[in-house]
């Protein structure tokens, strides 16, 4: 399978209404990329974001939106690093602008250029995007660039590390972990009692040590006499 540039460009598609066919098609598109399941979840997340964008645009909330125009015609929106084309025309204009903009993105060093086409990208488009990315030099020059690349590929956690990433949806409510935590918390509530108890019992170990020392003290003179 020819390796699609998962680091550089994710090719997604988008239609004006989000329907079940879209979801199915997203999984089909994702299957053409190397890391399938990750790409699929990413695609679906971005589709939802795209739907939110159009709703925001309908409401007139355009604070986070830049726009892309060609020949004075509004062709798409830029949201953070994602470019979306809402042109209904399935053929050349959107795809070619996308290609030109993809290369622009490469130039202006926005690594993660996610370009959403208004029609399904054909195999030729993906091949072109692949060739574009391969014509530039992608090897990392130092460890930091390598870490950036790996973070985008999903091999590394994001930095700064989020310790509670797996805790976001809620932590343990039942089971042995909860039970253990309850025990620990209960112990912590009575910690002063434990402190007093050990203070009281301090003489006992000291007494034992003194007896031992006396024993040995008695034995030593015996040895020296021999």
């Amino acid at each position, binding site marked *: *399978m*020819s*390796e699609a540039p*998962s680091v550089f460009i994710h090719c997604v598609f988008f239609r004006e209404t989000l329907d079940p066919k879209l979801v199915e098609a997203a999984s*089909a598109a994702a*299957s*053409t990329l*190397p*890391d*399938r399941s*990750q790409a699929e979840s990413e695609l679906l*997340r*971005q589709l939802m*974001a795209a739907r939110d964008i159009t709703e925001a645009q309908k409401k007139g909330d355009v604070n986070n939106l830049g726009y892309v125009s*060609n020949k*004075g015609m509004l062709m798409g929106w830029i949201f*953070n*690093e994602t470019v979306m084309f809402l042109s209904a025309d399935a*053929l*050349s*204009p959107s795809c*070619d602008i996308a*290609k*030109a903009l993809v*290369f622009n993105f490469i*130039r*202006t*060093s926005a*690594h*993660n250029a996610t370009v959403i086409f208004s029609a399904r990208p*054909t*195999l*030729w488009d993906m*091949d072109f995007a692949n*060739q574009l990315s*391969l*014509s*530039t*030099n*992608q*090897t*990392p*020059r*130092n*460890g*930091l*660039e*390598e*870490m*950036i690349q790996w*973070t*985008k*590929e*999903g*091999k590394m956690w*994001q*930095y*700064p590390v989020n310790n509670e*990433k*797996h805790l976001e949806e809620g932590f343990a409510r039942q089971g042995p972990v909860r039970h253990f935590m309850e025990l620990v918390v209960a112990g912590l509530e009575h910690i002063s009692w434990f402190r007093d108890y050990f203070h009281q019992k301090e003489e006992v170990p000291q007494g034992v040590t003194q007896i031992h020392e006396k024993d040995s003290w008695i034995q030593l003179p015996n040895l020296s006499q021999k």
Partner: protein
Amino acid sequence: MFTRVSVCVLHFLLFSFQDPTAHPYHFQDDPYLSPRTSSEFRLYSLSQESGRSAAKFFVNSNPKFFTTDFAEPHIPCLMPETVSLLLEETSEEALKERISLRKVTAAVDMYDQLLQTGTAVSMETTHELLDLICLYCDRDPVQEGGQQEVRRRKGRFRRASDQLRFTWKENCNAERIFNLLPERDTQCYSALIRGMVKHGAYAKAFSVYTDMLNNRVTADVHIFNALMAAAPDLRDKYNERWDLITELLNQMRQQKVQPNLLTFNGVLKALRRCGFLAKTQALYTLNEMKAMGIAPSLASFDHVLAVFSKTGKRGVRFQYTETSPAQSLCLDNKDLDLGYKVQSLVEQGENWRLLGDSYQQSVYYGRFFNLLCMMEHIDVVLKWYRRLIPSLYYPNPQGLKDLLQALDTDSRLDMLPTIWKDIRSLGHDNKSDLVEELLTLMARDRHSPEVQEAFAACALDVKSAFGADRGRPSLEWSSSSLSHITCLLLRANKTPQAWEMLQLFKSKNRVPDEGLLDDFLSACSGAVSPDKAVELVQLSAAFGLPATPRLAKRTLAEFNV
């Protein structure tokens, strides 16, 4: 909201460290293990890539050994790829699955089965199938390594195809399926023509296009772009090529197909092969693009620069340029300021990535360094030398000769021993013309005693480079190299070593020249060793030199023999 991968902190750290002289990161950080020449660099990169591919291949072909998943959260790309087909029955769904997994032969088989059972296949799926077969030239795609090094083996052709070049076969599955279709629309023709052009069947592509016109099917922009790319290969004369292209453009207009950026880039690219016609037509093309509101891309500028670089016309304005041809343009024009501008662009941000793979990078830096050697003061040249070499550029012998020239021009010949060390470590110490040049420069004039001392030490080191058997073609002694080394040794009063050199003359059947023997005599008289002087005269006689009588007379005069 969607969670975007955040690399801000890493980016910030990255831009705080910029060290162009750093050791290449992807190799082991050990002086013994790091590449010292460009060929070693390529070898090590290739071996790294092939190691990676081998590991990936092994993981994917034996998934049962790699089932343990340590990573939390799960990292899909490190696990074996499970690309087995799920759907086995003969259906359009199964066909679509095979297409999406890019299994060409399986898809063709499934399609044939569907035809046999009489099931209709939707037009959309047929289009996708045709696209698949045409793109991969009727073969299952091979998993390719990611880096350019793997593919650019020769590096001779700058525009070599990135994928393995397959040639289109007569009556391959694509054509067969195409001919079996009850009706063929634009997209079917498009797939076929694009595939034919991609895989070298240019004439066929044009004949399919003619069929298409005869069947009154309109073309799309992709068809025209493909035909434009194929046009220069179908005609030999410049004006015929250009005529073909204008013909295509006219037909585009007649069929009301809008050209796009790729169309114009295709025209410009074809113009590179249209000789004298190129310059005017390229400018017209650029104007057309502006009129249509299509912004030229980097590729457009690359083509235009290539068209103009022969005569070095600088009427072209560029914001960002393809760097290597730009640098060659500066070289042709001897325009140093422009060269610096280009270099500063390269150093900005991520632009260095545009330099491409290691071969193109070496071409670019080679030209830049050449420009510097020609135009700049030696101190600046040396500053750039230390900066670029060897972290970014392994100079070839020509580059080093340029450097030697620059040293000579600015009278910094005292740097020669240091440069010789670099020549050795770069592995160019077996290039005879380079070594001869070095020796000539060292031996040409007399210098201060310290410099002579350094030159003599260097000369001894150069001597050891001759005839050394290190498993690669080594240097052969010539009379000039022997003479120069001997002369340098004499000047630093290293007489014993100089005598050894004379023996070498004999064993290699080379004749020393008279000036050298005169110098020897002078050295002998300085050391007051009459026997040596006699030996010298005997040697001269053995060589049959015409100067022998004169030397004999001199010996008699200066020594008590």
